[in-house]
């Protein structure tokens, strides 16, 4: 019964995602919808390191920027085929994942949040100032449309369906990983590091793997973003963007694919809905996110699974143990 309900929910969501752009012909809405799919890919990645493994990644913006600029520069400055740009973006994800993960994840503590937040700011700084390569504040313009087997995806409407397929594939892969031995170990690391260590699992390697999944998907999402917008500049990739991704993950529901997808959809579309508040919409949006953190920490999915308050008050016992 429960399983079939879940199946029906997923099917319904899929139908909505397929039908909406056909019914709603507004081009701007199509762009927002494409953005939603990009966000699903990025949040699904972030979920591995932050949601499952419990290590704060505050640098999603910088990671996405690396992917976006890699792809954009490959196809504009160096005239490589678009597929090469995407591959370079993935490689960039691997490099960032290992390069940042190695110094900060071997150690216990909050170091990953600090290095990623720093990385993100520095990335933005370099992208803004290295004018010869990146175009500085002008950004990279005229990023070509994706060409899929001879079909040019030259409207947001066409790209949307291509990205929908990618998002579904990423979601399935991510679901499989979460429900595999890796997903289990990621959660175990969040629960109790020493016990995982004593079970013969190299924790640093596992955390770096989780982080690399996040950076690869983040960079890939960045590349998707670049080819969808056709234009990128450094001001997109700020701390606010990183915070938005965290909010998506949390508001949807930490640690689950369903949560990541719902969160990405809600947080991408909510500000558009709130636009009527004009000057106040960003304030209202941020307040909603803050209230979510305090009152519905397990996110929207917990409304369906019904354990919304369980975790919130589960701390007392743990905090006593932790402070021995």
């Amino acid at each position, binding site marked *: 019964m429960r399983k079939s309900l879940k199946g029906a929910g997923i099917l319904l969501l899929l139908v909505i995602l397929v039908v909406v752009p056909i019914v709603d012909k507004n081009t701007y809405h199509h762009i927002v919808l494409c953005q939603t799919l990009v966000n699903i890919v990025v949040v699904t990645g972030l979920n591995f390191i932050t949601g499952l493994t419990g290590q704060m990644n505050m640098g999603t913006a910088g990671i996405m920027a690396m992917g976006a600029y890699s792809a954009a520069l490959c196809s504009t400055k160096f005239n490589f085929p678009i597929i090469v740009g995407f591959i370079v973006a993935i490689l960039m994800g691997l490099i960032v994942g290992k390069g940042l993960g190695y110094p900060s994840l071997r150690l216990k503590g909050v170091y990953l949040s600090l290095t990623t937040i720093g990385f993100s700011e520095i990335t933005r700084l370099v992208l803004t100032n290295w004018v010869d390569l990146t175009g500085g504040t002008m950004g990279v313009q005229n990023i070509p449309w994706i060409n899929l087997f001879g079909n040019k995806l030259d409207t947001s409407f066409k790209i949307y369906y291509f990205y929908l397929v990618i998002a579904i594939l990423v979601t399935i892969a991510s679901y*499989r990983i979460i429900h595999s*031995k890796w997903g*289990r170990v990621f959660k175990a690391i969040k*629960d*109790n590091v020493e016990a995982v260590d*004593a*079970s*013969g699992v*190299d924790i640093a390697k596992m955390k770096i793997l989780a982080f690399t999944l996040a950076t690869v998907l983040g960079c890939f999402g960045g590349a998707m973003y670049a080819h969808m917008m056709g234009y990128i500049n450094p001001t997109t990739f700020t701390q606010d963007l990183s915070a938005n991704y965290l909010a998506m993950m949390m508001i949807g529901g930490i640690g689950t694919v369903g949560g990541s997808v719902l969160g990405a959809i809600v947080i991408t579309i909510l500000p558009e809905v709130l636009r009527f508040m004009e000057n106040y919409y960003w304030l209202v949006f941020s307040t909603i996110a803050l209230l979510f953190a305090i009152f519905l920490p397990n996110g929207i999915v917990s409304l369906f699974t019904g354990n919304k308050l369980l975790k919130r008050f589960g701390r007392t016992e*743990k905090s006593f143990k932790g402070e021995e």
Partner: protein
Amino acid sequence: MNNETILKVDHITKRFSGLVAVNDLSLLMKKRTIHALIGPNGSGKTTTVNQITGAFPPTEGEIYYKGTCTTHMQPYQIARLGISRTFQNLKLFTSLSVLENLMVGGHQMTKMGILNFLINPVKAKQEEAQLLERAEEVLEYIGLKDLRDTNVKNLPYGKQKMTEFGRALMMKPELLILDEPAAGLNPTERKAFVDIILKTFDTGIDIFLIEHNMDVVMNICTDITVLNFGAKIAEGSPYDIQNNDEVIKAYLGDKYKPIMAVKKEVL
């Protein structure tokens, strides 16, 4: 070191900024023994175990496992050599079920890389099935088959301890280190735990344990090392220890001997 020794602790000293927790401790654990480390609270038992399992290195001295120097290895590396452990204050994965807890314990036996996993779902399923099979074997062994899908945080303490024991068995260790296995258990649970420890020993796994309950120690152990204030004050068979004056003074108490004799029959 001869072939009969599985674990050799060689003059280790551990200082925590001035406080000497373990002082020049040496001990030899022979193969096919159940070796107990006993002593009053704060005598450095858990600190010793933590050094053997690599949670932190000793300030001085070396530790050898089957001839390999493990002094400066990480816990996971030591675990991979075949040393598995449980903890004094349970360390379980509280967001996972009993089955999943066990499966994490068996994770390091799996070999598949993540790319291969994504490309080859069939082989991935096979590997998962193997791990599952092993976990169910252990579940059966520790008698928690009915509770396989229950979240561990909803289990009573005794069952949680049993889960942790099962997790330690998952990786098929050669040496099992138990930190106070009987603590906090009621007499029935304790008896069950003692039985399973003996049964496990009979399957060929050597056991090193810390324990406060003298009934357990005196009845199942073949060798005992006694610590007091971080230093070894005695070692030998249960009989030797029970008749060692210094141990009686420091730990067992004057009246212990007669009580011991009576209790032995009860258990």
